[in-house]
């Protein structure tokens, strides 16, 4: 993905206000030579060229109006200026309405895209945001191998895919930590998990580890505090991994991870089977609860809210170490922030990292280094080349 919105063409960079004036005066011809959104000092100027009756910016920033109207700057030219904080990363689409018919489109003037299982969004970033090379560019001298498996589950009565990351230089004369990753195939595809692991292992920031990537065909049910899922992980997956790989024993070398409902599944599994996993990496956990009234998040959240309400009422430590991350633009930030002191009071070694980002895969990707290195500090400490 390219970094958007820098005016590098001119010897004297044009200011955002001057560009906006020029767009008003000259219309679409003034777009030439500039990239959009145009970023300057915490502000972003968006432009849309084309026939429309109305244009809106659709983002997923909790607390802000979800559809922000553009203004007509000239014939068939629409503009909008919004605040974009220095480290922010915002995914968006444009709503274009013609003759009463609206449709959401990616920004035609912006090549920067973020992919996810549902397609792709346009992305605008603040001037200080930089993409993590360690997730995008594999600089490792040696690479791990992703082994594809079909795993027969008695619990679910089906066969499901597993992708298992086996670190470079894997050998049975060593033992390895195990990380079980919910939505693991999506982590591999949309968060560059294998590249992240290769780079961090190569840089000795994490130890070589085996990562079991699972994928549920019905995640909204299986990950929503499901006893069946917890049994699947602990009674089926774990023994399978132990039989096939040389793993370190004990919970301090076993971790669960996941994002959104995957974080709920991780927490729930750890609580249902104490002592099986000593570390959790929970990203944008859907830890919704209600102190009063309904949760307003639809019926899929009912079992989650019931679980979290019960957990908050009678909490126990789910693991020795828990890494939490969440975007400040997510409504879930409130729940994740409240999880940190709750866990800390239980004696859990807990760390919460917040980002100016939303509920999306690139947010989760960008926090992987923080989470993995904190949970599994690597052998850098031991190496003096």
């Amino acid at each position, binding site marked *: 993905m390219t970094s958007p919105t820098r005016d590098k063409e001119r010897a004297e960079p044009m200011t955002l206000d001057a560009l906006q004036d020029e767009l008003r005066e000259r219309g679409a011809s003034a777009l030439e030579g500039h990239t959009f959104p145009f970023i300057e000092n915490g502000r972003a100027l968006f432009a849309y060229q084309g026939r429309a009756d109305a244009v809106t910016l659709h983002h997923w920033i909790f607390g802000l109006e979800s559809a922000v109207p553009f203004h007509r700057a000239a014939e068939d030219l629409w503009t909008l200026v919004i605040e974009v904080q220095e480290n922010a990363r915002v995914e968006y689409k444009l709503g274009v309405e013609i003759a009463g018919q609206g449709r959401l489109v990616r920004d035609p003037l912006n090549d920067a895209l973020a992919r996810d299982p549902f397609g792709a969004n346009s992305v605008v970033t603040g001037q200080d945001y930089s993409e993590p090379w360690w997730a995008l560019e594999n600089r490792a001298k040696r690479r791990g191998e992703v082994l594809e498996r079909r795993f027969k589950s008695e619990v679910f009565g089906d066969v499901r895919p597993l992708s298992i990351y086996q670190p470079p230089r894997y050998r049975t004369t060593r033992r390895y930590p195990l990380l079980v990753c919910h939505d693991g195939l999506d982590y591999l595809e949309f968060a560059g998990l294998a590249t992240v692991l290769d780079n961090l292992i190569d840089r000795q920031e994490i130890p070589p580890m085996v990562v079991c990537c699972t994928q549920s065909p019905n995640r909204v049910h299986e990950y929503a505090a499901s006893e069946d899922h917890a049994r699947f992980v602990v009674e089926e997956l774990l023994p399978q991994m132990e039989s096939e790989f040389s793993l370190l024993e004990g919970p301090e070398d076993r971790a669960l991870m996941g994002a959104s409902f995957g974080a709920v599944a991780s927490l729930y599994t750890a609580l249902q089977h104490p002592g099986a996993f000593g570390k959790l990496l929970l990203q944008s956990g859907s830890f919704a609860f209600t102190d009063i009234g309904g949760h307003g998040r639809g019926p899929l959240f009912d079992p989650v809210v019931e679980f979290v309400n019960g957990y908050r009422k009678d909490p126990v430590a789910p693991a020795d170490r828990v890494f939490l991350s969440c975007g400040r633009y997510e409504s879930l930030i409130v729940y994740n922030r409240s999880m940190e002191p709750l866990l800390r009071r239980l004696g859990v070694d807990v760390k919460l990292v917040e980002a100016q980002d939303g509920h999306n895969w690139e947010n989760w990707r960008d926090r992987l280094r923080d989470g993995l*290195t904190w949970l599994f*500090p690597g052998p850098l400490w031991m190496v003096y080349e």
Partner: protein
Amino acid sequence: MSPATEAPARTVCLLGPQHKTPTLRAVLDSIDAGTGPFALASAGWEEREAETGELEKHLGSPVRCLDLWPRAEDAFAEDPELKQLMFERFDRMRALSRVYRMRLDAELEVLRTLVAELGEEGDDDVVAPALTVAFESLRACDEHHLASVASLSDSIFERVRARDSVRRRADEVARLVEDAGTLLVAGGHVGILYNRMRMFGVLDALNPGASVVGWSAGAMVLTERIVLFHDSPPQGAGNPEIHGPGFGLAAGVVAMPHAGARLRLDDAARVTLLGRRFAPARPLALDDGQSVASTSDGWRFDGGARVLHADGSVDAPAEGEVR
């Protein structure tokens, strides 16, 4: 402690990293005893141990790679009980380190607070005595851990060395080492390097007249105690800690290779903590091109090797100065 520590005095050189500006050849030329044949312990490179081409080119001489890494891998594959013994040591080391680090966190927090309390003159009549006691407590914590690891290693390696799978390979290593003029000990993973050298008794077999030259991790394992350090690791407190005993050939110093990159040497409080903690041993900052060599009168400093002092200062003895 390894029996190797009982070996008679020999010329020992400790060098900084050799990647960017190798000075090994120059150091060998500067000591009368640095002659071939050269035996090489480079297990810290792990599976790259046999990649000796660059080194041989730099030396202008072939080296006998001891192949400690593949020998150990072969022995593990052949002898599952040996593998279990080493796993047992690893697990016990982790348990010891976990408790040591808990104590260390507390000890160093107190010390940092007290050091910050000291006035410019360092003669505060309330804080200074408390600091003395705090350093004694820290040193006791270090010594306890060192003794625990030494005891564990002695016990495990005695059983390791008794195994046929190891004994046969140790004999092969001994044949490569016994007539060597110089043993070279390369850097890399300091724990693995120490383990493999100990497993196969590399120093036990070494000719008493042979010189020993180590760089980076190779320098660390030659000292009396291996100190791990990094002021700004990606995660963790970055508290310097004792990993365990070294082979003790280089007495009275703590080898700190890559110190310029890993330590904040301009931070007097941090330097004080190191200098005073390990006294009377002298922490040596060994960066690119820097080295020390043992002489009958002390250590000879070359290339700008520096000493970290208890008063927070760092100084570089003059070229060739012996201290």
